[in-house]
């Protein structure tokens, strides 16, 4: 164990007194060394020499959160050594972005052999993402604090803050290809559904409630309603958070807004029974093959939790077309959540649409230029906005485009079902 500054100071003091004694030829000065020597002696005698054997466990509740929710962390420390550990300093290290809401993540304690000590603290809801709590820094020493031993216990736990999910209500999709399972996407085939498809003559065995009495009265014979069957489809949600996409055109955090939108869409599409996949394009690229169910929703949200806006390493065209070809059945639905900046995204959307996929685009609404800015910056923003509008106009010819503002409810905008049009 290395000596602490305190030990060095005490030793220096002892030698100072010896020096004074010699300098002034006064032996009485050496008397002051006796208490110091005794302190050192006591410290050496009553110090356990073995490494502090600590067993540390941590519980996090909830381990997964949707944000806006505080997280309780409990750390259990067991002194597995055979001696008392005096004044042990324990610090549960955490990222700077996480703030303490209650309690403390570091404290000094003494532990008897075999003693278990439990300590809790609360961290405030951090931003969406994946955080690591730990490792745990432990500092222990002797009774007088003359020697110190530091160790880092690799007890690392993960906390995932999932993106916020908004309730959207039914999202109506039109797909050219549907799966065999019942769902909410019109299949252009007869079957059990809610949308009227055609009339046909009554055949024995038809349900009475399906008889169209008005048509029957007109035709003078029983006529039955036929419905369009509704099935599920495969959807790939593509979220574009690349650096090129996140220009200064948006006054708000466009990446966060897009993640929330993508999470809400994934959740709703899964709830409607569809197989949903994800491709997150940004500083970190993630993709998930389409699948059903709540587990898939959790995987999707986990994938969205770690989306980082920034420079991507491969072109978006390559990323999207490779994933689409690998995991998405032909003529399925692709939902783009993108600011539609630059030509690349335009090419991608045009390519996939021309390959037979149904494409829906969601894009954040850029603010009008109200801020006081230099003329050059204002002009640059106007050029960017104009380029974006041209892109948007071109996209409307191959896909449905929805421009969504963070101030307005996504649910409300989708209900209106009014795709973006150039005014």
């Amino acid at each position, binding site marked *: *164990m290395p*000596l602490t500054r*305190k*030990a060095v100071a005490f030793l220096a003091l*002892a030698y100072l007194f*010896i020096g*004074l*004694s010699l300098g*002034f030829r*006064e*032996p*009485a*000065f*050496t*008397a*002051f*060394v*006796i*208490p*110091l*020597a*005794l*302190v*050192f*002696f*006591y*410290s*050496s*005698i009553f110090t356990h*020499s073995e490494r502090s054997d600590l067993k540390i466990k941590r519980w996090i509740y909830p381990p997964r959160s949707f944000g806006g929710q505080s997280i*309780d962390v*409990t750390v259990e420390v067991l002194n597995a050594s055979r001696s008392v550990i005096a*004044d042990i*300093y324990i610090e549960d290290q955490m990222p700077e972005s996480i703030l*303490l*809401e*209650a*309690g*403390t993540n*570091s*404290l*000094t*304690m*003494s532990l008897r052999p075999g003693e278990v*000590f*439990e*300590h*809790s*603290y*609360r961290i405030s809801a951090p931003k969406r993402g994946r955080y690591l709590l730990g490792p745990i820094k432990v500092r222990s020493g002797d009774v*007088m*604090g*003359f*020697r110190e031993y530091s160790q880092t216990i690799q007890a690392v736990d993960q906390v995932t803050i999932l993106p916020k999910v908004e309730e959207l209500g039914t999202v109506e999709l039109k797909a050219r290809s549907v799966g065999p399972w019942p769902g909410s996407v019109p299949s252009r085939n007869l079957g059990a559904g809610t949308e009227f498809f055609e009339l046909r003559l009554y055949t024995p065995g038809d349900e009475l409630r399906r008889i169209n009495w008005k048509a029957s009265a007109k035709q003078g014979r029983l006529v039955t309603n036929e419905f369009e069957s509704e099935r599920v489809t495969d959807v790939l949600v593509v979220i574009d958070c690349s650096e090129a996409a996140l220009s200064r055109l948006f006054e708000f955090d466009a990446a966060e807004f897009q993640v929330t939108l993508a999470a809400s869409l994934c959740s709703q599409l899964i709830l409607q029974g569809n197989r949903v996949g994800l491709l997150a394009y940004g500083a970190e690229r993630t993709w998930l093959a389409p699948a059903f169910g709540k587990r898939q929703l959790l995987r999707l949200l986990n994938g969205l939790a770690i989306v980082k806006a920034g420079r991507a390493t491969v072109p978006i065209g390559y990323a999207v077309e490779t994933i689409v070809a690998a995991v998405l059945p032909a003529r399925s639905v692709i939902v783009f959540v993108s600011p539609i900046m630059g030509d690349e995204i335009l090419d991608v959307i045009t390519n996939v649409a021309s390959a037979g996929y149904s494409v829906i685009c969601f894009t954040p609404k850029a603010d009008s230029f109200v801020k006081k800015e230099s003329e050059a910056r204002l002009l640059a923003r106007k050029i960017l906005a104009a380029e974006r509008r041209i892109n948007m106009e071109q996209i409307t010819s191959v896909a449905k485009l929805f421009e969504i503002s963070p101030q307005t409810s996504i649910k409300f905008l989708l209900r209106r079902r009014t795709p973006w049009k150039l005014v």
Partner: protein
Amino acid sequence: METGVEAYLLRWRFLRIFAVAWLLLSLVFITILFPPHLILLGILGSILGTCIGGMAILKGRWRWAVISLLDGSVMLFVLLLTQAMSKTVGQNLPVTLLQFVMLLFATEVFAVIFKRLDLYAKETIQSLVGVPIAVLARSNEQAFRQVARFGLLFASFYLISIAALYLGTYLASITPVLADVSLFVVVVSISLALLVLMRED
């Protein structure tokens, strides 16, 4: 806030007040022995040391605490120098040794308090979750026990030092060869301490 917490906070406050009071006592004790022409310096040093120590405890700044303890050390050093000039160190040794041990004890009390300061921070106390009341109780108990132990320890160290001095003086009067016995004792004890200190863990 629960009543238990209030009680522990009260005890904690008492400990902090005790630390400042002990520092004041030590400094005043040193000032008393100052020669008359330096008494003003002693008073000034005492006031300054106590104020800085008090502020350190109040604000939780260890550096300030170190400054206040250094202030005490400087005062003791000045006192020892004046005594050395007038060749009265040996004469006043039991008292100056007591002052020195009191300062050492004050250092330990400050250390005990500052190790636990995080736990007693206002923000921590106001937002206690679940277990920390038990933690507070443990910490409180341990702090008091440690201060008491250090008190006993330094008192015994003082007594041992005095006993060693008197023994040295007594032995020197019997056998003049051992006139420098105190120095001998010191050198031996320091060497022993260093040996133990530097041993392999």
